[in-house]
């Protein structure tokens, strides 16, 4: 779950990580009289907001209202701006970078810090990034902050501030099951204070059962992906025109890849998962139909999900939703012959192997295109 900057900063405040004075608005009328000059920061879940013109500065209220109005009318990389974070403008001396994420290979939390903040960390030379892997059974210990401070060339007063900040970041990272806690830039102000000018927090979606206070943000999904999520389908919208229904994430990906190798572009990823339910199969169709594909390809390797169950679901869907699009089905595995017979009886092409299925899709596509 990606958090908006202001939501991440609320967590920062809760864990004692300093952030600029500020407030969130949903309407330009909500601009207050008390904090100026301000930065007006569009709240979107996509990166690269600054370059896309999503941040503006204002010295007084009228100016702020005008600029907020402008920001609310914009879309940033396709996302509508629903919130603006209004923050006291900082007197920036230096911009640093610090983050904690999970290193999958080493199976440890990874702290990264750099004196070159304010730019995407991927663009920073690796030699200029300090990395330290935390043993999860030891956790944070102050020696880590000492090393980070040294690499960032901090003076003793700033080192003290950083030590608190990093300790609190790790506590937040652990307490809220974060996949990422990133502060970029971490600002040293001309007054000598260290302050989190931005926040990027990703909370593990699988941990939300124990974090009821974490907001559910679905703004980074497409409309169809949101509907699919409510119905518990694993669904990703793509930009092609072949609808895909398959079982298992790996097999579904392999199906998309095979189509692409034939020059066919998939419209979606839809994984039925490991169930044996006619309804789950049937209800996947309206979702794919909403994406308006030209052909639907169903690719099933039957195990727990039995091929005849899938066939019944397809036949029911075809009747119930009046599907006139070509449907090509590949069924292999448990009860495959029964399944293919059910489909044949209902005039649906069914094949035993994936290459045959994909070839049939390609043949039909030539005809309809």
């Amino acid at each position, binding site marked *: 779950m990606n958090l908006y900057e202001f939501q991440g900063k609320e967590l920062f405040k809760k864990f004692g990580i300093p952030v600029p004075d500020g407030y969130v608005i949903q309407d330009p009328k909500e601009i207050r009289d008390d904090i100026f000059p301000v930065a007006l920061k569009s709240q979107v879940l996509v990166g690269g907001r600054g370059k896309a013109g999503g941040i503006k500065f204002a010295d007084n209220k009228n100016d702020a209202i005008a600029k907020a109005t402008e920001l609310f009318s914009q879309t940033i990389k396709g996302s509508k701006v629903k919130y603006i974070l209004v923050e006291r403008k900082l007197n920036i001396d230096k911009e640093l970078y610090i983050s904690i994420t*999970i290193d*999958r*290979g080493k*199976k*440890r*939390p990874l702290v990264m810090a750099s004196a070159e903040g304010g730019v995407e*960390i*991927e663009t920073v030379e690796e030699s200029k990034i300090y990395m330290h892997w935390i*043993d*999860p*059974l030891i956790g944070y210990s102050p020696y880590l902050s000492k090393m980070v401070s040294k690499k960032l060339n901090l003076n003793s007063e700033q080192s003290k501030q950083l030590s608190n900040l990093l300790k609190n970041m790790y506590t937040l990272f*652990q307490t809220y*099951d974060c*996949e990422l806690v990133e502060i970029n830039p971490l600002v040293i102000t001309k007054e000598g204070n260290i302050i989190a000018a931005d926040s990027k927090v990703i909370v*593990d979606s*699988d*941990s939300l*059962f*124990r974090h009821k206070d974490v907001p559910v943000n679905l703004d980074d999904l497409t409309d169809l992906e949101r509907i699919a999520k409510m119905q518990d389908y*694993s669904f*990703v919208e*793509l930009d092609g025109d072949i609808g895909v229904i398959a*079982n*298992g*994430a*790996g*097999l*579904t*990906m*392999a199906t*998309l*890849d*095979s*189509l*692409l*190798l034939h020059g066919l572009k*998939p419209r979606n*990823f839809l*994984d039925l998962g*490991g169930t044996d339910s006619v309804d789950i199969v049937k209800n996947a169709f309206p979702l794919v139909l909403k994406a308006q594909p030209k052909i639907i390809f169903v690719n099933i*390797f039957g*195990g*727990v999900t039995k091929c005849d169950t899938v066939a019944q679901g397809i036949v029911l869907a075809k009747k119930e939703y009046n599907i006139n699009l070509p449907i090509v089905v590949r069924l*292999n*595995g*448990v009860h495959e012959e029964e399944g293919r017979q059910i489909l044949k009886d209902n005039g649906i092409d069914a094949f035993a*192997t*994936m*290459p045959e299925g994909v070839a049939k899709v390609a043949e039909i596509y030539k005809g309809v295109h």
Partner: protein
Amino acid sequence: MVFINKNTKVIVQGITGHQGAFHANEMVKFGTNVVAGISPGKAGQNVNGIPVFDSVEETLHLEPNATMISVPAPYVKDAFYEALDAGIKLIYVLTEHVPVHDSLEMISVAKTKGVIVIGPNGPGITVPFDSKIGIMPNHIFRKGNVAVISRSGTLTYEIVKAITDSGMGESTVIGLGGDAIVGLSFTDVLKELKNERRTKAAVLVGEIGGTAEEEAAEYIKSEFHKPVVAYIAGRSAPPGKRMGHAGAIITRGKGTAESKIKALNEAGVEVAAYPQDIPSLLKKKLQ
């Protein structure tokens, strides 16, 4: 064979659940020695003849050495530590959606005790027809000398069946799990296979996300001298989108299929364009 054999005594934590009961029975049919099931409050019952106990500790007289955990995600950590404390040496977690911080912690603790962790969120391990711990369909296997190591479930079955249908067979098939943090890496398993007699060739079934395939390629280049072929799912996946598995995501330019295919090719591993090409690539290598 690696990790398990005919003598492996298996318990199933969560045996009275729908999944636990079904797969425990399938495991018995395959030949696995399932000695007990655990379901708190249900001691004295049995599931298809498998005795049920309230806790792992109460099964210790049966000398179990491996467990399959099939409990809801919020309870996995507790079940895992219960097995670990009881001295179980191989822990397989079937459950999907285990919080990643729980996995980090569980796997770190298991490592200090030398306990093998398979999963979470994978189909388990099968050694035809000695033993199977997990949910792979029984009918797709033939005893043979190809090891399959995979991050997927269904795609693994597809490839195993293609190997079986082509006349070859499998030595060990292991599903590492679809999560970002799992117990075993490709490299961990290759190290076991290196001097294992039955295995003559290995198949890696990878997917986008992380760098486990790239690391395996490094190991193969320097240390692993049996033939290896591979398939990588997710060539068509857009960056930043989770493709079903929690671990199948390209983040910040890392974990692309291109990078994995390139690394494997450089290590002399042929990567199949389609899953069904695996048997012919294997035959070519084994000639």
